[in-house]
């Protein structure tokens, strides 16, 4: 009987961790400017973090050949020649993590020229950690029932 109670408790805890609204303080959107230097075959700051609602300005500086920057999910892009800095401005209205990648063929390793845009906290990352901890406790708490194998 007590084991059933605990089972129910664990299931409830799991649901809370998975679906409870994340305690995030509302942050006033602001304007953020990033300078990204693109060279063969990497972005010099390849990870940018913003809060949802921020206005993001990405200044793309190309240091060798023509490079581009395309943001997955947002479906926007710019292209910069060396000596001609271009700015990509957008409002980060979609939360999550997005790849940005070079969209101008810039040489042999061009497909590997990628970076990451993080909008907001990694909610599902923290939720999955919580769920894993509950699962581990659950496995340790409940002794496994012996499995009966009936032979003819």
């Amino acid at each position, binding site marked *: 009987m007590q084991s059933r109670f605990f089972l129910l408790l664990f299931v409830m805890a799991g649901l809370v961790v998975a679906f409870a609204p994340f305690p995030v303080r509302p942050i006033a959107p602001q304007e953020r400017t990033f300078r990204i230097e693109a060279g063969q075959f990497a972005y010099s700051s390849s990870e940018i973090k913003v809060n949802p609602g921020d206005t993001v300005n990405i200044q793309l*500086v*190309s*240091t*060798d*050949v*023509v490079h581009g920057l395309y943001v997955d999910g947002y479906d926007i892009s710019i292209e910069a*020649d*060396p*000596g*001609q*800095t271009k700015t990509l401005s957008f409002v980060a209205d979609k939360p999550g993590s997005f790849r940005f990648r070079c969209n*101008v*063929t*810039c*040489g*042999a390793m061009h497909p590997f020229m990628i970076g990451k845009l993080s909008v907001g906290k990694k909610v599902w990352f923290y939720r999955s950690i919580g769920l894993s901890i509950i699962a581990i406790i659950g496995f340790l708490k409940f002794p496994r029932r012996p499995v009966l194998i009936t032979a003819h």
Partner: protein
Amino acid sequence: MKRSELLSRIFITVAVLGAVGAPLFVWARTPLIHAKVAEDGGWNPDVIQANAGEPLFLKLTSDDVVHGFAVGQMDMQSVDVLPGKVSNVTLTFDKPGIYTFFCTRWCGLNHWRMRGTIEVSGSPSDHEPALSEAAEPLYVTLGLDIDAPHDALVIPRSQPSAISGQQLAANLPIDLSTDYYRAYSPYQVFDELPNTSLTESQSWDVVAYIWQSNTTNESLSDGQQLYAQNCAACHGENGAGNGVFADDLAASGESSMQTMAGADQMTMQTPVDFTDPTRMLGASPALLQGKILRGGMGTGMPMWGSIFTEEQIWDLIAYLYSFQFDYHRGEAQ
């Protein structure tokens, strides 16, 4: 099979083969030009033959990065040359002569070395004089040594303003003609200003006004565009000589330098800082024209004589002086 049917069958076969085959034949005969970065060989082929007055068809593709194709001194839209794609270009040359084609998208430190020639044949007598017979540039007429030092001995304490110069110049006997402007450096003009009650900074303002009155908004914006596309990668987007390639040029050492006096006399020179008044105010437009036309100077400066038209070079020069003078055209009107 009736005789008429056989004839019509033959006729249709020939017509279809002709309609499909003839364009295919022309297309297959069109040379495919491969573009690679200069270190790997640049354009291949880099010499193209053509006839004056006849259209020249070209197919272009890139083997590595994004390149561009344009012909110097020709009023044409540059064509992007992309890896894995074939771009088609049709050119018609009115005059015979040797034309230079060049890469228009920055493809690395040696981007500007990516050039080739189109040899256009035809009898020059039927047409205008050939390209090579252009008038000699102003610096040659004036006998300027474009390699001599040309520092200004006095520089203004603050940026000269053309607007206040205009008011001061109203009562002065100054020469605003293009000939005068092109032949003298701002410092020379400053030095030769009639001895009046003007202070030093007021005199510089008058010089700024003379320079402003020899340029137009269109000329400045054309010059700005040319500067961004062709100069900013080394000389910097704000003219300070600190473009993205400035460090790479220094690192590559001798290979980025050229000198007529041999390797022993090579000294590393960084791209010129156009915001430096000592050098810029000591340089006349004619001197700058010579430097842009010829290039060199013991540095990796390309020669632009075969690329830019004379008008484009004057536009570019007008823009270069805007790093020194405060024109503020918007407020003037």
